């Protein structure tokens, strides 16, 4: 079992977060984010660390962490590809995109590649129905209007250590693709 500790710098950040709210309880979510950024996930040990650091019951932190799917309760790949398979994306081929990724990386949704680089997840609506099918990368960049070619490009970029740019999305752009 790995032991996790916050650095002095992170502890200072946590103090700053705490000072923003009237009660410590409110700091739970931002501190969980901070922990996830630091350790890549918030598994049971990290949750315990957050609870101890904030002086909150471990059960409270656990309840918050399990409520939100964006907190990773186990170790994931370096890049987590959340492919939307909810209604709008499904109609526009969300599952085709998911299966393309699965074939390309040789894993199933919910699994991580052996090299620890990619995790694929099938997720529900991310609120970008206008640009379906789409996916989100590690709770960050949205990649819109997916095609198999675009997915391959994204994978290559990520493998090279880059990250796809935020895509300008607007009416004009949308109309052109339509």
């Amino acid at each position: 079992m790995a032991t996790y500790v916050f650095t002095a710098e992170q502890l200072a950040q946590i103090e700053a977060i705490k000072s923003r709210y009237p009660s410590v309880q409110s700091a739970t979510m931002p501190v969980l984010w901070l922990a996830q950024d630091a350790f890549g996930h918030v598994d049971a040990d990290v949750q315990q660390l957050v609870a101890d650091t904030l002086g909150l019951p471990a059960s409270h932190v656990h309840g918050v962490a399990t409520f939100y799917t964006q907190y990773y309760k186990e170790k994931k790949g370096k890049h987590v590809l959340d492919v939307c398979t909810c209604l709008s994306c499904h109609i526009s081929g969300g599952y085709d995109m998911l299966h393309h990724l699965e074939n390309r990386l040789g894993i199933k949704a919910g699994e991580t590649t052996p090299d620890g680089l990619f995790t694929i997840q099938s997720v529900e609506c991310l609120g970008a129905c206008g640009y379906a099918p789409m996916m989100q990368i590690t709770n960050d960049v949205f990649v819109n209007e997916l095609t198999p070619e675009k997915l391959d490009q994204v994978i290559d970029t990520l493998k090279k250590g880059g990250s796809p740019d935020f895509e300008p999305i607007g009416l004009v752009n949308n109309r052109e693709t339509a």
Partner: protein
Amino acid sequence: MAEIFIDNKRFEYDQPTKVLQFILDQGLDLPHFCYHPALSIPANCRQCYVEAGLPVFDREKNAYELDANGDRVIRWFPKLQTACSLDATDGMVIKTHVTSELVRRGQKDVLEFILINHPLDCPICDQAGECPLQEQTYKYGPEGSRFEHKKVHKPKRIQLGPRVVLDAERCINCTRCVRFTQEISKTHQLTIVQRGDNNYPMTAPGHVFDDPYSMNTVDICPVGALTASDFRFKARVWEMASTPSIDLTNGKGCSVDLWTRDNLVLRITPRFNPAVNGHWMPDSGRAAFATLNHDRVDKPLVRLDGEAIPTSWNNALLTFTERVTAANRIAVVGSPHASTEDNYVFKRFFEAAGKGAAVFVPHVIPGSGDGFLLSDDQAPNATGARLLGLAETQAAALAAEVTAADLVVVLNDDLVGRGVLRAEDLAGKTITFASNHNATTAAADLVVPVTNGAEHVGTYVNVDGRAQRTIPAKETSRTDRRLNLEMSSGRLDTFGTRFDNWVSDLNRIDCVPAWEFLTEASQELGTGLYYESARDVLAEIAARIDAFAGISYERMDDERGIALLATNETVSA
């Protein structure tokens, strides 16, 4: 006084109150799950829906606006309100399911939602028979479900802690258990995990639900999601009889119910008593059900050549009187674990025989209390013994007295087991009254089996000076429910026969109350004590001892115990 109209009936109230609590206080019914009077109000089950409205007040005329019929004009709240969180307001008009079709429909639909993922396993569920969900579905629920899809599956048979088992599928997420650990026991051990239709209560990973009050969550769980590990699958609730009694494992003396079947106590649950324990009791008190049934002294035991041999009551009585007569100096050790009646007759017996004054050793473990429902005092009746005039003594003084005496008589107190005396101190010169085998009975020459709190009527005075009494729940070989009117009698006891296949005589212990044995011994010695019943004893105590003046079983029952000391601390419910 403020008025409120519920289903066209006028009620008055003076204290601020929530509508649901007010309705329940009137003895009316309104289905609810998440609301508990001692916990905060989250209004999350949505079951206590009512229609609510307020009369329109005309400020200019300073009067309620009236319609053509002369009735008040009511402005109804646009939607159904949860009665649990709705403050009663002067003039408020409430319609419950009794008068409102909309409320009936609302309750039915909420139940249909709650039951979407609830397994239909009532036949194998321990909660069946005392399940609010089952009862309310029966009374207010839909006839079937329109939900034809697969139910969500969740973890089952999770051992949350040493005493509580979770079946997450049965949970309806009322959060009563979570609020209990947050607000009452304050251990914060439970939380609701996951979200939507996947959520259920859980401890944090790696944490065990070992709260000393954990089993209260089993009581307040409105479904069979939380069950007690020691009671799972032991009995159906309708097979048992419940007898009001008190917890005898601690000085606090929580009010409890003893649940019995075929003369076995199967579980102990708290009984609401605002002056002592509110709705709750500690887990340690519930574990006592085992000592009430098992490892009991059954028939008198005499020690012959170092071996304890069962003997007849006649022999026990004669041995007892002979040894008492022969002894020059007797150490008379009363007990904070025995009832007031037993201690009183015990003390009187040796006074009448001219054989010395009774003492007792309090059973206090400093620091073991928690300021809530566990006191440092481990014995239920130290205050009672004190008020009776038994001299309080400590281990060293008692050891000296025991060494000097040529006979030691101990009233149901495991002095060796709790480290007051050593077995060597007692060897060869000890008579003890005992209900369970223990280290003291192992050292005694004569063991007289006596009843415990589940078998006799007895008064116990708790650490706060509150006198409460027990009611016999179990028959002994010498009592019979149908003849002894002090005993409780459940449905199966009343309507069953001796020859029903669930009846056996296996669980009846051959023992008597200590006062009864001592009365007989007094007759034998001619010292003139005679008591017909525990009532007789209590009447004499009430007449002779000022502290107990005016005390009676009826008053203890009606007033949920009687405060005997002027300063009477209570816990808040």
